[in-house]
């Protein structure tokens, strides 16, 4: 989101789901959407079925990659190298959209100079992807009538995740593949309302509607409405909070609907820090591992059936959710918990209904102004921005960049010079394998919400290994091995996956109670977004000498 906000001023995907079907080329970069975003992937499959070309860029030949017309299996963390190589090839082949570049963008010359060294040969050497494949992706993407660039955590969960995003945005700017129906940039969101959280200002530097905390005018507007003073500087993001805990600057924390004790990289360290707090409050619907560390647990409500309000999905569509049940026992609607807390702090906020809260938001956030609940209900959801009740904006963002009138075009979208920067932890003789992490179809994050359901596909945690490595190390499918990184060691059963190449191994983080993979991962983070480098660390695999008895023996 930081990358998109930097370039376009708004931190959201630029396209709608339905536009995927209108794209004749779809690039999924660092995204195993087949498993991790199955709903969005249905739209992709529709497009593919209608003849759209699909490219998948991923170190693993993932389930998504197996749908691709071409899979580019780059080395972990060489995304910028690949993107810069593609850019140079597009420029040198004369396929850049010069009219768009001249009218709608800035900083092109510096960008073009920065990618000039990235010949196909160098790109192949750094990324491992054959020059021919890079060339095909470059030419096909540039020449598409409408191309979608989609990505997920394979791009963002790096120490330079924001730069990775900027590298992809550069390609869209270079070819004019943004701001048109079907052509756009689509970061896929991991949770049903993660977009809504950002929309509502649950970001350290934003007020609701992506208005800047440091913008005096915006802040003033909210202060007037709220009869309160808002700190004029940006807050901390999650990683900075943990750093502040480490320094001792942060002593009291309230966690709502998160499970950092299990989802943070280098998990044991995160638990130490949480345990060291003076005061920890957790508001959740489950007694998570984090909640078990808390001084106070506030039982919240299930958003999809126990509360009235809205959610926003990945395509910026705000939708109504309705209450079907009362929360059980002493649990309350989350907003009621917050109102009660505010009252304890001396602020007696009063709303007759949840709709009143929404209408207050509409009065403060221009992009939500046209979304009355009645209209949301009538239209089955509305995409932001929606500035007035009498009209709808296009399903895609940034159409302004194509406007003839420079005033309508507004702020030019800048190219970003991004430098190839390999993962913080290089593989070594001691830790010769590159571990990358990801998700599977039938489990969700740390399993808090999915472990309670049975799935015929769920195999528990495994260490996925290429057939070549398995043979070289003499380890068999299902054999339990030690997996060790510089930070720690876990035991896990081996799964041989021909989608992996020698030297690359894979684990999920769905089963922290059985195998805590984040013992292995590195807590290098991107200073711009706070996201940790879950996608790259170095490990080794050791056979366990003891022979385990087979089941029943």
């Amino acid at each position, binding site marked *: 989101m930081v990358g998109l906000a930097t370039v376009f001023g708004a931190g959201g995907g630029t396209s709608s789901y339905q536009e995927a079907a209108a794209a004749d080329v779809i690039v999924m970069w660092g995204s195993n959407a*087949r498993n991790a975003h199955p709903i969005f992937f249905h739209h992709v499959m529709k497009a*593919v079925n209608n*003849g759209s*070309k*699909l490219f998948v860029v991923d170190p693993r*030949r993932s*389930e*998504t*990659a*197996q*749908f*691709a*017309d*071409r*899979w*580019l*299996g*780059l080395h972990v963390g060489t995304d910028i190298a690949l993107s810069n190589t593609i850019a140079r090839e597009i420029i040198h082949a004369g396929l850049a959209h010069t009219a768009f570049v001249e009218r709608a963008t800035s900083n092109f010359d510096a960008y073009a100079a920065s990618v000039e060294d990235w010949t196909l040969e160098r790109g192949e050497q750094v*990324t*491992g*992807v*054959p020059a*021919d*494949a890079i060339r095909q992706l470059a030419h096909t993407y540039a020449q598409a009538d409408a191309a979608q660039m989609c990505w997920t955590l394979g791009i963002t969960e790096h120490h330079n995740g924001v730069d990775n995003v900027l590298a992809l945005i550069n390609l869209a700017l270079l070819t004019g593949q943004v701001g048109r129906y079907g052509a756009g940039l689509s970061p896929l969101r991991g949770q049903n309302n993660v977009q809504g959280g950002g929309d509502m200002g649950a970001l350290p530097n934003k007020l609701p509607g992506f208005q800047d905390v440091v913008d005096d005018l915006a802040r003033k507007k909210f202060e007037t409405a709220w009869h309160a003073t808002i700190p004029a500087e940006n807050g901390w993001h999650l990683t900075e909070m943990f750093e502040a805990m480490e320094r001792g600057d942060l002593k009291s924390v309230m966690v709502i609907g998160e499970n950092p004790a299990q989802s943070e990289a280098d998990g044991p360290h995160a638990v130490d820090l949480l345990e060291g707090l003076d005061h920890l409050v957790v508001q959740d619907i489950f007694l998570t591992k984090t909640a078990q560390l808390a001084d106070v647990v506030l039982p919240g409500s299930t958003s999809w059936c126990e509360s009235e309000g809205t959610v926003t999905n990945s395509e910026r569509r705000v939708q109504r959710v309705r209450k079907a049940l009362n929360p059980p026992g002493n649990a309350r609607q989350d907003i009621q918990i917050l109102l009660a807390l505010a009252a304890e702090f001396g602020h007696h906020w009063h709303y007759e209904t949840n709709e009143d809260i929404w209408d207050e938001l509409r009065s403060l956030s221009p992009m939500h102004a046209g979304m009355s609940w009645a209209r949301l209900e009538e239209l089955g959801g509305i995409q932001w921005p929606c500035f007035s009740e009498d009209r709808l904006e296009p399903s895609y963002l940034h159409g302004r960049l194509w406007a003839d009138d420079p005033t309508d075009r507004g702020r030019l979208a800048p190219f970003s010079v991004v430098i190839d920067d390999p993962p913080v932890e290089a593989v070594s003789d001691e830790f010769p394998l590159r571990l990358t992490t990801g998700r599977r179809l039938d489990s969700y994050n740390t399993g808090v919400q999915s472990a309670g359901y049975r799935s015929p596909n769920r195999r528990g945690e495994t260490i996925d290994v*290429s057939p070549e490595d398995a043979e070289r190390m003499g380890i068999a499918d299902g054999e339990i091995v030690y997996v060790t990184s510089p930070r720690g060691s876990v035991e896990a059963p081996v799964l041989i996956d*021909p989608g992996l*190449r*020698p030297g690359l191994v894979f684990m999920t983080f769905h089963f922290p109670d059985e195998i805590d993979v984040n013992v292995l991962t590195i807590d290098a983070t991107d200073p711009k977004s706070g996201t940790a480098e879950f996608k790259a660390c170095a490990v080794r695999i050791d056979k366990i000498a003891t022979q385990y008895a087979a089941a029943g023996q």
Partner: protein
Amino acid sequence: MDLKTRSAPPTDDEQRAVDSVLGAAPERNVHDVSGGHAYRAKRHLLLPTLHAVNDRVGWISETSIDYIATRLDVSPAEIYGVASFYALFSMKQRPSHQVHVCVDLACRAYGGMTEHELPAGAHPTPCLGLCEQAPAAFVTDAGSPNRQTVAGHVTPVEVRAWAGGTTPDREAERVATVPQAGDPSLVLLKRAGRIDPLDIDAYIADGGFLALAKARQLGPEGVIAEVNDSGLVGRGGAAFPTGRKWEAVRTQPIFPHYLICNADESEPGTFKDRALIENDPFALVESMAIAAFATNCQHGYIYLRGEYPRAHATLQHAITESRRGGYIGSNSGSDFDITIVKGAGAYICGEETAIFNSIEGYRGEPRNKPPFPVEVGVFGKPTVVNNVETLMNIPSIVLDGGQAHASLGSHGSKGRRLFCVSGAVKVPGVYEVVYGITLGGLIELAGGLRDGSELQAVLLGGAAGGFAGPGDLDLELTMEVTRNVGLSLGSGVVKVLDQTVDLVDQLQRLAAFFRDESCGQCVPCRVGTVRQEEAISRLASGARDGDLDLLRDIGQAMKDASICGLGQTAYNAIETAIVRLGVFSNA
């Protein structure tokens, strides 16, 4: 896609068979894999691939299904669904030597064995299209090379020997199928027995490819005008005006256009297409080249039934030679070329839309109409589907003019017609006549009834047709006259049954045939053909109240509500036997 396979590799033989059609598998590459559309675009090669495996290995194993699935990017379940649709493919391991013995109407009536009489190692099969040399058998030996033999006039002694592992040392007669061979008045069959079907020079010397040259002078509109003038209608059974079909495709703005020659001759009692292909294959190639020229078709398919190995070889040779001679293919001035697609033992694949699915590599289930094939046919493109006999009329229409064709026959039935005469006649075979001959006249043409035979019934038009009785000898064999009395000429079947034939047994076999060949896609046919067989079985073993009414109800339901002609006609012949011949009249 993310296929789920059992991860076991194919055997060497299986892999070679698959690769012979799909090309060698790409090497494992850990940084770059192409797939997706490029793989799925080969889906139309699924049926040939399954043939290759079945021919070489003898059956289609799970490992070969998995391997084909990964090569085509199609799920193994779907491959299984297609493979198991066809009777010639086995999904279970079996000996490489297979003996298929015809137990259908003509063969069982005249010396053939029934399902229950077959020795171990021999399998019953529906009509093999060799009724004039009944009884017939089809013997296959899987391997490389693969061997397939069709034999006629087989004896129970031979069947037992073959079932024991030996292979027939003779093939069915080719020219014997055409008793009129050499008769100078013949048009459709004029080259049978006179010209070597493997010699393109002999064909050219006999006036071959002159019609194609004239067609090019006439232009597409000119050719279609002649075909319209001729009054030619489809000979596959539905009798749709050929010129109208061609005009509809010619004017379609969507490309490419496809031409399909329906040679999936599986209607029990029909063998005319085989006679035409085996005796005059170049004429079919020329006819298709003309049809493609007139309708602006870019590619042609001949969908040939899988039990015609010699017709396949003959036709393949003719296509290769015609390509070399510059009559089709890239040297012909147009890019029109012809591919043979071999069926695999599914009667339903003679239905024109089922052919599309079969060619495309799907289960051969008929499609709903509309859209009609002239608009949305094979691969979703405008498609002409013509029967072999229909196409074989084209050269003479082009050379002699449509009027000459239209001047023959009756008001409602123009030109010449092939009849497949089998059963209790002295000289069974394919007969070419001008429309208007009577049933009695045709039987006389075939040498009359065998000595000692008394006419009991005649099955007209095949399993989807109906029974005529001894009182119908004066019946004019035209479309309009037969239609008026509730019969049809269908595919030209005239199966003559004498007093030795058990009509009830014939009806039971008919019912079993339809039950077996129903594709199961739509309920009226899937359920109706089973209920029909049960009711006939009960009637055969003694009267049961209401079964005749039940049969009528089932027949009506199938006629009203089935998707395709199979279900719609599954009760026809049985109904005529009951109504016209009084079978089960004691019930």
